[in-house]
């Protein structure tokens, strides 16, 4: 659930998503759900010539399972806070396993 909450804090930011089939899409992150499915608005496909089928698409729902990377604006990520939260979550998980 940690990354779900993390992505929720990034809504309305411009992100670039790379899919497992190498398509890269830049757009405004509109929403994200528990499976990390992502909804993007005002999209722009990088290297559009290779993917003509996306030429007239304006917004997009991407299934979480096909995402390879999400590139985030550096200024919007509080790395310290995220590190902290990640460790806490990991400790929590380890505690549960025992």
């Amino acid at each position, binding site marked *: 659930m940690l990354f779900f909450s993390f992505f929720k804090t990034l809504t309305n930011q411009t992100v670039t998503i790379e899919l497992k089939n190498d398509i890269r899409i830049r757009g405004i992150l509109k929403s994200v759900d528990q499976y990390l499915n992502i909804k993007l608005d005002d999209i722009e496909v990088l290297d559009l*010539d290779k993917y003509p089928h996306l030429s007239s698409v304006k917004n*997009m729902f991407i299934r979480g399972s096909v995402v390879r990377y999400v590139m985030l604006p550096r200024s919007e990520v509080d790395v310290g806070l995220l590190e902290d939260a990640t460790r806490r979550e990991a400790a929590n998980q380890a505690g549960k396993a025992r």
Partner: protein
Amino acid sequence: MERNDTPPNAQQRNPQQQQFQQQNALGPASQGPTGPTGGPPQLPPQMFTTAAQLLDLTDKKLVLVLRDGRKLVGVLRSWDQFANLVLQDTVERIYAGKVYADVPRGIFLVRGENVLLLGEVDLDREDEIPTTVTKAPFEEVFELKKQEDSKRKSGDKKRHTELSALGFEPEHSGEILF
């Protein structure tokens, strides 16, 4: 995370309480547009479900890309939380090299796991077809596509054998993605 999900003074509480706060904020009964103590504004949690994401795409003309590389253009009529979809008046658009062809298909019921992405077509721009592709007869495109596919398949196979000889596991073994 706490920055948006819990009030600012949560930092001073003990970790267990913080934990509780965090989970509580994710629950369906979470607070309204502002945080409980007037913290930063929050979007209602029901915004963040698959259903909410698909709701505003309903009855719109969409491009659906499937895991096997098929591109379908149709009107989204129904869906569920797994992104299982029903498309009406579907046309399959086959691309090969610099040409494409349309094949009328009718109703499509797609199992969610096969969905790669779903894009809403901008009706004002839908006729602006990129100059890099031109429409061609189906038979011609299909033949070209078959050649492309077999070429890619043998290339993939070769790469996989070479990679596994070096001890690498292919990135998406067994899954066809393009």
